């Protein structure tokens, strides 16, 4: 017949346009699987629930009308445990693609892997941070209702939520990096859990000096320090640096695997 029906090759879009589309696709990917919503439900129950329990505990405790304390601890305790619902959400966004083989179609639709990497980090991390901050705010407000002796000024809320955002952003990047590096849900999940929660507590609970010292270098130690503002042995800046370095290292290793190796 005729060759006229074949469309000509379209003009190449710029990198910003390709990123915007890749990010849009990531967002549709996230919201069209049930796991995302289950993870958000789990995070909601944990963050708000833990926050409420912490507030109820506090109602028996130190705060008085004369010497009030900020209710932000509720959201912070909630996120300490509830971050795992959000990190699982982020991790599954990456590893489910390898488990189902759908990384193949994904790379056929967005073959520029650097752009895909940027979208794959940015979108799930933004969702985790936004959800976590919102849920922590709910927990803080709920705590106010539970213990009338608590306060929540705008400055206190902003400070507490900013620290939560930092912890969740760094944790999300760590999870994406490990997911891209290990490509296995079970392996990456276990690693994130160990680094972020289990090892920092476990290694300090033994009476072995060098184990406790080593625990000081884990990302979870930085996360705990940022959320609870203790122990004092680690400065706020040190805690931030620790989390950023771990996230950057995981992202560099995982990103390298995505950029350089076969799709999988």
């Amino acid at each position, binding site marked *: 017949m005729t060759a006229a029906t074949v469309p000509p090759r379209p003009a190449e879009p710029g990198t910003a346009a390709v990123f915007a*589309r*890749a990010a849009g696709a990531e967002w549709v*990917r996230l919201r069209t699987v049930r796991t995302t919503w289950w993870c958000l439900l789990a995070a909601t129950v944990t963050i708000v629930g833990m926050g409420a329990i912490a507030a109820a505990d506090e109602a028996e405790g130190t705060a008085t009308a004369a010497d009030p304390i900020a209710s932000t601890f509720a959201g912070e305790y909630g996120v300490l445990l509830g971050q795992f619902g959000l990190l699982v959400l982020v991790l599954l966004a990456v590893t489910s693609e390898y488990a189902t*083989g759908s990384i193949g179609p994904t790379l*056929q639709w967005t073959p520029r892997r650097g752009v895909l990497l940027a979208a794959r980090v940015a979108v799930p991390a933004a969702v985790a941070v936004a959800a976590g901050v919102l849920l922590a705010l709910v927990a803080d407000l709920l705590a106010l209702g539970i213990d009338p002796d608590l306060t929540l000024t705008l400055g206190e809320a902003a400070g507490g939520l900013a620290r939560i955002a930092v912890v969740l952003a760094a944790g999300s990047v760590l999870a994406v990096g490990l997911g891209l590096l290990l490509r296995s849900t079970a392996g990456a999940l276990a690693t994130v859990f160990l680094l972020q929660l289990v090892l920092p507590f476990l290694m300090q609970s033994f009476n072995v000096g060098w184990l406790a010292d080593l625990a000081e270098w884990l990302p979870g130690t930085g996360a705990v320090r940022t959320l609870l503002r203790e122990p004092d042995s680690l400065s706020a800046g040190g805690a931030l640096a620790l989390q950023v370095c771990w996230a950057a290292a995981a992202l560099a290793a995982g990103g390298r695997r995505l950029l350089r190796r076969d799709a999988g």
Partner: protein
Amino acid sequence: MIEVRGLTKQYGTVRAVDDLTFDVQPGKVTGFLGPNGAGKSTTMRMVLGLDRPTAGTALVAGRPFARLGQPLRVAGALLDAQAVHPGRSGRDHLRVAAGATGLPPRHVDDVLDQVGLGPAAKRRVAGYSLGMRQRLGVAAALLGDPAVLLFDEPMNGLDLDGVRWVRALVRRLADEGRTVLLSSHLMSEMEQTADHLVIIGRGRLIADAPITEVMGGRHANRRVRVRTTAPDDLAGALLRRGLRVHPADDGDLLVEGAPAETVGDVALELGIAVHRLAEQTSSLEEVYLGLTGDSVQYGAAALTGQAVR
């Protein structure tokens, strides 16, 4: 157009694809044939930038696929119909593709109707049959109205209607002037569908020629099948002329190396009645087996060798 130049893929000590060079031209259905493990899928994955070649290049519409900003509008592909997140609906799967390509969502419904998945569009892919997943994969390939299409075994899992549908589809796409590369192990399908064949074995190019040329080549035996009341007499006369004759299972004679005219003339000279006289060209399957015979990796011989040891 797809241009493959010196494409090579090495996995450890195994060379899965070995210095392949061929072009896939627009306006034709190019069949990509080879035994299992010959490197067909690996080649297609390298063309699409999924796997990194050890050496060589592949260009799609003049550019490496991995650098394309909106690849679905340049080339669509169905490699593995099972490689879809089972928790997403077919429609959502395509909406992701449309989003990544910057296509309006209405394309999704158009293409779903085109492949006949409209009624199942909102169901989760987990409940799809293999045939439905093949159709979903074809829908994704067609979504961006691309000039280049690659299909890896698209007829797997399809029923007869589905096979006919794919055959008509690739025909139409090629007739519209698109470049179509189609791999299949169904030789009879290739015979009916492909215009051109690229045959590989053990990662190496064995043939790159129009299908008519492959069928008429060295490995394509022309034979004459003849049915007669006096087969022994006729066979004797043909043998004396230096032709090769052997009996078929049903008592007919198979004569090689001569056209039907010669056999008919000999029978007339002897006054033998001929009840049937037919020229037979070998099927693509026979030609293919002849061409790839040396390069079958996991053939019976290899297995026997294993057992003896």
